[in-house]
């Protein structure tokens, strides 16, 4: 596959990069990235990956756009209120870059469908807003041996970590199990500065691109915590946990778990 004139122009600032070149751009155009959630994190992730010329972006979300989403979910515009988030997101990504194939799933990721969908992608992005889903994504990516870029946001803070199964610490190496329901506030309850979603989401997109290109050092075995109040990043070294129930030598988790879902978060 060779580039058209338009493609060379569109991606010229990428192609100029020695680490990317035409070869790297081609890799992006052949890559498939699965973005779980078309909300605060999923929007900037998918927007930038679309602009970058990722071949296929998978988007899963069962929600419709709410007016309270627009403060941060930048793929959704005012006329989209009430429409499906995946459809709204798909339209904007394809208006920006019609070459990107956007595959939408208007459903929730569950223990039943997760492995099957994830197996069809190269990299997975966590853009969900609840712990059961974050653990489900972590477990399914490990079982399907797919790299995952984890993200979390709350109030003025955010966190990113890249997980390469069997090579680096997974989410369960740090957090064994989801917290008891209701004890950790969600963005809906505690609020979120919209731009923090953009900061964390664009780091997640950067990690995905690096993983595809195999350039630099991924954010593995490091939790990157961001605090917007002081504009500081803190990096916390983590290691694979020998007692991890998912990826440790005596792992006991071999099946996906559908934890009790919290009441649907209309974030």
């Amino acid at each position: 596959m060779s580039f058209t004139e338009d493609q060379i122009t569109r991606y010229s600032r990428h192609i100029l990069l020695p680490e990317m070149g035409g070869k790297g751009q081609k890799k992006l155009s052949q890559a498939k990235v699965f973005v779980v959630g078309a909300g605060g994190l999923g929007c900037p992730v998918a927007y930038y990956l679309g602009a970058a010329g990722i071949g296929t972006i998978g988007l899963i979300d069962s929600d419709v756009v709410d007016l309270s989403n627009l403060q941060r979910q930048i793929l959704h515009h005012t006329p989209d209120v009430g429409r499906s988030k995946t459809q709204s997101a798909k339209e904007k990504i394809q208006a920006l870059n019609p070459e990107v194939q956007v595959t939408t799933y208007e459903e929730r990721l569950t223990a039943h469908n997760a492995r099957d969908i994830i197996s069809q992608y190269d990299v997975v992005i966590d853009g969900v807003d609840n712990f059961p889903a974050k653990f489900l994504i972590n477990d399914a990516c490990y079982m399907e041996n797919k790299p995952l870029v984890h993200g979390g946001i709350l109030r003025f803070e955010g966190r990113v970590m890249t997980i390469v199964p069997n090579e680096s610490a997974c989410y369960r190496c740090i957090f064994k199990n989801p917290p008891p329901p209701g004890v950790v506030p969600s963005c809906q309850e505690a609020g979120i500065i919209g731009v923090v979603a953009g900061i964390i989401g664009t780091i997640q997109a950067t990690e995905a691109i690096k993983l595809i290109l195999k350039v630099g050092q991924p954010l593995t075995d490091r939790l990157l915590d961001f605090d917007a109040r002081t504009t500081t990043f803190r990096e916390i070294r983590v290691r694979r946990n020998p007692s991890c129930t998912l990826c440790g030598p005596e792992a006991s988790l071999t099946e996906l778990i559908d934890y009790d879902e919290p009441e649907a978060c209309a974030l």
Partner: protein
Amino acid sequence: MQLTINGKVENLNVSTVIDVLKAKDIDPQLVAVEVNTQMIDQENLGTTSLQEDDKLEFLFFMGGGA
């Protein structure tokens, strides 16, 4: 003893990890604890003794995304 907790040096009169959690009024269910880059299992928080200059990280759940 002198400990570094989430990057900040603190002097606390404690001997185990659970003492630190109590001193700071942190619910052990809501935090993952790392001592010198090693994760401490929930059930070992009370038996993990600390040494002068240990580095502790309290990692709180951060679950938002949408």
